[in-house]
């Protein structure tokens, strides 16, 4: 500690080490939060259901998404990324997941929402397997913290079915 430079260096190094500790503890404190998210998705209307020129099925839906993701937000949350995926099985693939809608929720106040829209991303199958298909609509979310590891979870809602004929 005999010179200005030596002291400045020692201080900076120790300060950054303690900063790393603080961030680790802040990230760890997320484990103590109680998370109870809830969601509901309703299909209001099948707008159209057609076979594309290439032979793939495509369907356009109007969805009503209601969700309360407020309990996912802690002091260490930067944003929550939520998306709705349609999941179904075909003879070709054990699991197909098609993302229909997503949103970035930056604050707790915006995490309790009700939205009615047609699908943001196109629902196209690999092939023409969608007639009369049973599928699940799953709301996935990724919680992105300010420091620490991102974690993801989902709610699966089943019981949806596409019509048996093209419209």
């Amino acid at each position: 500690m005999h010179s200005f430079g030596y002291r400045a260096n020692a201080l900076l190094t120790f300060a950054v080490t303690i900063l790393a500790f603080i961030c680790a503890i802040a990230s760890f404190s997320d484990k103590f939060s109680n998370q109870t998210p809830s969601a509901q998705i309703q299909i209001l209307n099948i707008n159209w259901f057609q076979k594309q020129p290439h032979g793939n099925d495509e369907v356009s839906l109007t969805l009503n998404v209601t969700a309360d993701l407020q309990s996912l937000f802690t002091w260490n949350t930067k944003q929550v990324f939520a998306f709705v995926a349609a999941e179904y099985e075909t003879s070709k693939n054990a699991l197909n997941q098609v993302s229909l809608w997503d949103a970035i929720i930056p604050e707790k106040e915006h995490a309790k929402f009700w939205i009615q829209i047609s699908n943001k991303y196109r629902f196209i199958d690999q092939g023409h397997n969608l007639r009369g298909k049973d599928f699940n609509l799953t709301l996935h979310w990724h919680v992105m913290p300010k420091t620490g590891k991102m974690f993801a979870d989902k709610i699966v809602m089943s019981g949806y079915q596409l019509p048996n004929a093209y419209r």
Partner: protein
Amino acid sequence: MDWQGQKLVEQLMQILLVISGVVALVVGYTTESFRTMMLIYAGGVVLTTLVTVPNWPFYNHHPLKWLDPSEAEKHPKPEVVSVASKKKFSKK
């Protein structure tokens, strides 16, 4: 800065930084504000810098006692006799 001062600086630096960290964490957690935690910690680091890095007078209360010049003259340094040393690498 003398030896006592250096020891004091090291202790002060460590204690002040750890306390800033702990206070920042506790206040941030209870107010649920990450920003508050970072601001308090940054303030703590700046405060510690102001206290420990410049060479304040109170770090020099135990100055080194250098030997008095008149005393030094009574004990002359031994003379260094230069010896021609063989070069260890040979020229080829």
